[in-house]
């Protein structure tokens, strides 16, 4: 499936600026109170410049989405032949948290996924053909998969996948309660006594269509273990089920690997070992040690960063991690991409959800 355009927004800026910051080893994560104004433990969070964790009315992140939507190539988005797929894990749930605290009814137009997306549709001038998907941290991959399927069936000419997640006390409080968001900065795939993640703001888009500007997505694979809400099946069968079809599609290519790599220990080890089995010797990176986990948007934010990395000729390493790692193929420093002709991109989510795909370039 050809990719016509893609970009993202992180606390570092667009995909190119973010990629430059990652190559320089910078971290957007800083220690902030987990519940914003209500305080709590200081945990690693990466918010857009000047944005507070507590939601305003209207949300401060709307201007970020305005900028992102402005970068989308022009088309009659939302008409019958140009569908839009909006994906997120949390949508405007930070506004619901704020409403529960201050009862300010101005929050309500952003509280539910359908109200928020309807507001964005009007704001950006899209038509009514706007699908809404939410599958926690594989949400963006699902948008890409369904957009590809609609295009492959000849039901559309081009498709826009638009994704975002902005952190709030709601989500930070939840991951803190699960004890994986703690005062430690994340070090994806590193062997250490305690696992930890960071959380970050993220938004991205991709336009899929017939003319790909040299980049294509293939082998888009999904698998849902349904073994446990917050744990994977021991042995890594779920990771293998998601990666095997991608490995088959990548046979004969030289690929590098962009993993999920949040900084948790058990899932990080299972993922790294599964990658090493399916793609022996291929360098593995995660960028969540710098950006935090951008939740439902991560699959497309990181796809846009992978495109920027390839265009720039150098992939950022796993910022925040140092040997020893779970496997010796974890790249902790930037590396040249010229010797590779593909990137494997993977994400995971609650419920043992897996999504993976192959990004290839001419």
């Amino acid at each position: 499936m050809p990719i016509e355009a893609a970009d993202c927004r992180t606390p570092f800026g667009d995909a190119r600026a973010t990629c430059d910051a990652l190559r320089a080893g910078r971290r957007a994560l800083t220690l902030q109170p987990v519940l914003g104004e209500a305080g709590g433990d200081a945990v690693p969070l990466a918010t857009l410049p000047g944005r507070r964790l507590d939601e305003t009315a209207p949300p401060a992140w709307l201007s970020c989405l305005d900028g992102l939507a402005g970068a989308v190539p022009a088309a009659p988005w939302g008409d019958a032949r140009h569908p839009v797929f909006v994906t997120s894990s949390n949508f405007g749930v930070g506004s619901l948290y704020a409403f529960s605290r201050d009862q300010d009814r101005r929050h309500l137009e952003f509280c539910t996924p359908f109200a928020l997306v309807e507001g964005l549709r009007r704001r950006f001038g899209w038509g009514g053909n706007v699908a809404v998907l939410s599958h926690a941290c594989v949400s963006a991959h699902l948008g890409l998969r369904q957009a590809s399927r609609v295009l492959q069936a000849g039901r559309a000419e081009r498709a826009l996948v638009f994704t975002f997640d902005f952190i709030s006390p709601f989500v930070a409080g939840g991951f803190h309660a699960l004890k994986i968001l703690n005062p430690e900065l994340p070090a994806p795939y590193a062997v250490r006594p305690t696992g930890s993640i960071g959380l970050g703001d993220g938004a991205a888009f991709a336009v899929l269509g017939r003319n790909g500007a040299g980049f294509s997505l293939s082998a888009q694979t999904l698998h849902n273990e349904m073994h446990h809400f917050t744990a994977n099946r021991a042995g890594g069968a779920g990771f293998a089920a998601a990666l095997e079809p991608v490995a088959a599609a990548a046979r004969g290519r030289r690929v590098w690997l962009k993993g999920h790599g949040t900084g948790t220990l058990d899932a990080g080890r299972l993922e790294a070992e599964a990658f090493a089995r399916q793609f022996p010797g291929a360098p593995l990176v995660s960028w969540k040690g710098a950006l935090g986990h951008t939740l439902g948007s991560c699959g497309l934010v990181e796809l846009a960063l992978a495109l920027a990395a390839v265009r720039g000729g150098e992939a950022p390493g796993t910022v925040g991690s140092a040997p020893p790692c779970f496997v010796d193929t974890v790249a902790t420093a930037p590396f040249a991409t010229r010797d590779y002709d593909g990137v494997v991109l993977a994400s995971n989510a609650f419920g043992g959800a897996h999504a993976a795909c192959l990004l290839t370039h001419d």
Partner: protein
Amino acid sequence: MIERHLHALQFEDPGLEETAATRERLRALFPRGATRRMTQLGLLLGSVLDPLHPAEEDALVYASSFGESRALHDYLASFPTASPTLFQTSIHPSAIQQVLVARQQPVREFFPFGGRAQLVAHAVEAALLAPSPRTILCGGEERILPPGDSGTASPVGFAFALALGADRAAALGTLRLEESPAPAGELALAEFFAALRDRRPLDQPVAPGMRLVLTWL
């Protein structure tokens, strides 16, 4: 035009039933101890999915406008000592995960849709385009009255599940999306549910360029 045939239909229409009553009524359908932390939406979807025996190779498409409203509001009430259980239960696809985790039933493709006016259109499109031999299209809402008249939850509960396949033999009906010149259209989930429950045909624009046709044999 894309279409599949309906091979099974299950629905739950509890209306204003409270969660505790739903839990008591449906307890026997779930593994021992599993219902204690299940939401009303999880219980209702478990009830309609159970006779269809979802399998790993089925595509599962799920539609809900409000999702896990009660867990979400209970989770908000748990602050400042946020509940980890309510947090993980509050995510949009949680109802299906509650059911399938309890049964240790993996599925390869799972598409959870949200939205409102075009929710049915896009969920049906995903179900009809899925390449699996059988697709299960399900959806529903749970009933809660959230504080502050916020409009962030459904006033009634319901759930449905359809098994869809390519074989016309012994089918109950047909679900089809046709191209339409109409620039707009909508069909809410509750209206789609009512048509399924009452076995009423549908033939109407449901999104730009899409006309949904439901016929019964």
